C-alpha cells in the first residue's frame, strides 16, 4: 500500500465512522467492546496487515466517537437554561424576517452566573442598526430552539453552526462603541455590502436576488414562490453557494489570468488566491468557506488530470471539515450537496475525456448532458431523502439552465463592478445580466408551476445507502474497465 493510499483510506475510515455515528445510535459500551476485541485480536495475531487494519479501525471508531460527543453536547440535558448578561459579539449578517431580524451572537464578556459556551440566535428588533462584528450590551432569558415540523430537525440544523439557544425577547440590547475587532470586521465585510447594494440598485428584483444568490449564496432574497420553484425544479443548488459556483468562478479567474499573460501554472495559483479573496468578499460564512474548499478540490482534481488525485484531495478536505465539525455530514444539506456534486464531477470527467477525446460538433452539449446526468445521479437521492421531493424535470432543467449560469454570474459581477466604478455605465452589463437571469427565472417559474413538477417521496435510509454503494461500485468497475481498454489501446499503438 502506497503512502497516499494509506492516507486516503485513513480519511475514508474517519468519514465512515462519522457516517455510522451520525445515522445509527451506537451505544458507548458497544464502541468500547468492539475496540477492545480488535486490540485483543491484533495482539494475539500480530502482523503488518492486522496493524494497518487496527489503525483504520481506530480512526473509524474515532469518527463515531467524535460525532457522538458533538451530538451529546446538544442534548437537552446538557444545555442548562437561564438569563445571560454581558457583552455579545454579532457573528452573522442580520437576516430580515417578517417581524424581526435574525442575528447570531457569541459571548464576548459574560457578567451573569449563567454563561453559555454555544452561540445564540437572537430575534432582534428590525429598527436596530447593527452589522457583523458589532458589540452589544445584552441580557436575555434563553430558550432552546423548537422543532415545529417532524420532517425538519431545526435544532440540529442550528447545532451544526454551534447554535444551541434562542433569545426571542432581549431585555437589554444597547450597541457598544466599536473595538478593534469590530473595526476589522467592518473593513473585511464592507466590500460585500457595497457589492450587494450595487446589484440591488442596478438589476430589478427578483433577478437581483438570483444574481446575489449565484455570487454570494443564499436564496433568502428570493420571494417564497420563486425559492420554492427552484426546489421543485431541482435547481436549488445554484442559489446556495456551492462547490459548483466556486469552480465556475475559479474557471473565470483562470481565463482572466491567461488573458493577462500568466502561464498556466501561474494562472492556477492566481485562481486559487482569487477564490480565497472571493470567499472573503461574500462575508466568509461557513457555507462559503466549505464551498470554497470543495470548489478548489474540483478544480485541482480536474487540473491535475488524474482521477485519483482529485478524489484524494476531496476526501482529505471533507475529512478535515468533519474533524472540525462532525455534525455537517448529517445535518448540513449544503455540505452533502457540495460533496456529492464535487465527487460526481471528479468521477465522471475522466470518463468523458477518455471516451470523447476528439472535438466534434455538439461535443460541448454532450459533455454538459453527461456531467449533469452524473451530478443528478449523485444529488437526486439526497434531495429526495432530505426534502422528500423528487423532481422529474430536474435533469432537463439542469441541462437547460446550467449553461447560462456562468454568463449570468460573469455579467452580474461586471454590473456590480461598473456600478461601483462608473455608475451609469452599468446599464449595458446590467441589460445583458438581466437577460440571462430572466431566462433562468422564467424557465424555473414556468416549469415550477406545472402539475407534477415535483413528487412527494419518502426514501428509507437503507435504499439511500444502497444507492450510493452501488454507484461507487459502478464507478470503481468502470474505471478498471476503462483503464484496461486504455492500456490495450496504447499497447497496440
Amino acid at each position, binding site marked *: 500500500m502506497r503512502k497516499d493510499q494509506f492516507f486516503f483510506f485513513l480519511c475514508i475510515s474517519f468519514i465512515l465512522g462519522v457516517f455510522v455515528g451520525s445515522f445509527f445510535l451506537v451505544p458507548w459500551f458497544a464502541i468500547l467492546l468492539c475496540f477492545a476485541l480488535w486490540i485483543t485480536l491484533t495482539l494475539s495475531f500480530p502482523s503488518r496487515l492486522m496493524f494497518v487494519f487496527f489503525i483504520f479501525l481506530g480512526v473509524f471508531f474515532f469518527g463515531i466517537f467524535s460525532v457522538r460527543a458533538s451530538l451529546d453536547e446538544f442534548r437537552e440535558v446538557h444545555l442548562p437554561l437561564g438569563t445571560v448578561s454581558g457583552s455579545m459579539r454579532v457573528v452573522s449578517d442580520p437576516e*430580515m424576517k*417578517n417581524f424581526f431580524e435574525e442575528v447570531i451572537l457569541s459571548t464576548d464578556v459574560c457578567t451573569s452566573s449563567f454563561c453559555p459556551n454555544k452561540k445564540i440566535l437572537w430575534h432582534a*428588533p*428590525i*429598527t436596530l442598526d447593527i452589522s457583523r462584528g458589532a458589540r452589544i450590551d445584552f441580557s436575555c432569558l434563553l430558550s432552546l430552539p423548537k422543532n415545529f415540523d417532524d420532517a425538519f430537525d431545526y435544532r440540529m440544523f442550528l447545532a451544526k453552526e454551534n447554535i444551541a439557544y434562542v433569545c426571542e425577547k432581549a431585555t437589554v440590547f444597547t450597541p457598544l462603541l466599536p473595538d478593534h475587532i469590530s473595526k476589522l470586521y467592518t473593513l473585511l465585510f464592507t466590500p460585500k455590502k457595497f457589492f450587494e*447594494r450595487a446589484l*440591488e*440598485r*442596478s*438589476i*430589478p*428584483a*427578483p*433577478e*437581483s*436576488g438570483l444574481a446575489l444568490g449565484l455570487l454570494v449564496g443564499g436564496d433568502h*432574497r*428570493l*420571494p*417564497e414562490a*420563486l425559492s420554492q420553484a427552484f426546489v421543485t425544479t431541482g435547481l436549488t443548488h445554484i442559489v446556495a453557494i456551492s462547490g459548483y459556483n466556486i469552480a465556475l468562478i475559479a474557471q473565470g479567474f483562470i481565463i482572466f489570468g491567461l488573458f493577462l499573460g500568466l502561464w498556466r501554472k501561474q494562472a492556477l495559483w492566481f485562481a486559487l488566491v482569487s477564490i480565497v479573496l472571493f470567499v472573503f468578499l461574500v462575508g466568509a460564512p461557513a457555507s462559503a468557506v466549505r464551498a470554497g474548499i470543495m470548489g478548489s478540490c474540483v478544480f485541482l482534481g480536474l487540473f491535475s488530470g488524474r482521477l485519483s488525485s482529485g478524489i484524494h484531495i476531496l476526501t482529505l478536505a471533507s475529512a478535515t471539515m468533519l474533524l472540525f465539525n462532525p455534525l455537517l455530514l448529517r445535518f448540513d444539506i449544503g455540505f452533502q450537496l457540495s460533496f456529492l456534486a464535487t465527487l460526481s464531477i471528479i468521477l465522471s470527467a475522466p470518463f468523458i475525456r477518455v471516451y470523447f477525446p476528439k472535438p466534434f460538433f455538439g461535443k460541448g452539449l454532450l459533455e454538459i448532458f453527461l456531467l449533469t446526468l452524473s451530478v443528478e445521479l449523485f444529488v437526486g437521492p439526497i434531495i429526495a431523502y432530505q426534502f422528500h421531493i423528487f423532481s422529474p424535470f430536474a435533469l432537463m432543467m439542469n441541462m437547460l439552465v446550467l449553461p447560462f449560469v456562468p454568463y449570468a454570474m460573469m455579467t452580474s459581477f461586471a454590473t456590480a463592478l461598473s456600478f461601483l466604478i462608473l455608475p451609469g455605465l452599468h*446599464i449595458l452589463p*446590467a*441589460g445583458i445580466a*438581466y437577460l440571462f437571469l430572466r431566462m433562468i427565472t422564467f424557465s424555473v417559474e414556468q416549469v415550477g408551476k406545472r402539475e407534477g413538477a415535483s413528487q412527494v417521496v419518502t426514501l428509507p435510509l437503507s435504499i439511500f445507502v444502497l444507492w450510493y454503494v452501488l454507484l461507487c461500485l459502478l464507478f470503481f468497475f468502470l474505471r478498471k474497465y476503462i483503464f484496461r481498454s486504455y492500456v490495450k489501446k496504447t499497447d497496440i499503438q
Partner: protein
Amino acid sequence: MSKRQIYSSFIFLILLSSTITLSLFWFHRYESITTVTFLSVGEGDAILISQGSNQILIDGGRRSKDLLSHLGRHIPFWDRTIETVIATHPDADHIGGLPDLARTYTVNQFLFTGAESETDIFSLLRKSLEENHVTKDRIFEGSLINLPRGGTMEVLFPDTPLPPETKESNKGSLVIRFTYGETMMLFTGDLPSEEMFIPNTGPIDILKVSHHGSRYSTSSVFLGQITPKEAIISVGKNSYRHPSPDVLKRLEEKHIVIRRTDQDGDIQYICTEVSHQCVFVK
C-alpha cells in the same frame, strides 16, 4: 472586400436597422400606454400606476421581497426611479415594503396624510426616507396629481392633513379617485364605513375594495352609491378571514365582477389614448 463580407455586412445592417425600428416603435407605444396594476403582495395593498417612465405607487404591501419582485415584473430593468410613492395610512401591511423600496429605487416624493405610527416599521420607513433624501408631503381632500400623458388622481379623503399622533389609522386612510378618459377607479385604502366618510362620491367603474374585504367596509349602501362594475380585492393568506363572505355576497348581489389578487395574481388594466378608457387585461 469579398462577396461574402459584403453579404454579411448587408445582413448585419438590415438586422440592426430592424432592431432599432422595433425598439423605437416599442418605446413610443410604451411611453403612451398607462397601466394600473394591483400587485399580488399577500395580505396588503400595493397598486402601481405606470405611464412610460413615470410611476406612482400607492402603498407597499407587507414584505419588501414581495413588493420588489412584483414591481420588477412591471417596470423595465433600466428604469430605477419611482416618481411618487403614496402611503394611504401607516399600517404594516401598507408600508412594510417601502423602506427597502426607497433603498433600491430612487423615490422622488413620498405623499401621506400626515398620520404617523409608533411601530418599528414606521420608524424604519422614516429613517429610510431621510437617508435616501426623499421629499415628504402631506396630501388631503382636493390634492391633485396629473399624469403627463393623461389621467388625474384626486384625493377625496381626509378633509385636512392629519396630526402625527392620529391613533386610529384605518379611519384616516387616504381615498383617491383615478380618472383616465371615461374610466374612474376608486382606491379606498383600509377605510371602514366609507358611506359616512365620503358620502358625496358619485358613480365609478372599478373599486379597490377597502381593507382587504373586511366586513366593516363595502356596505350595500356604499355599493349602491358608487355602483361599480368591477371590484378588486387585494388579499392574501391571513388570520382575519379576509375577504369576508358578507362582502363577497354584497358584491355578488349587485352583479359586480370580483377579482382577487390571491387567486388571480397581479391584476392589470391598460388605459390607452385611442380607446380613452381602461380595460382589464390580466
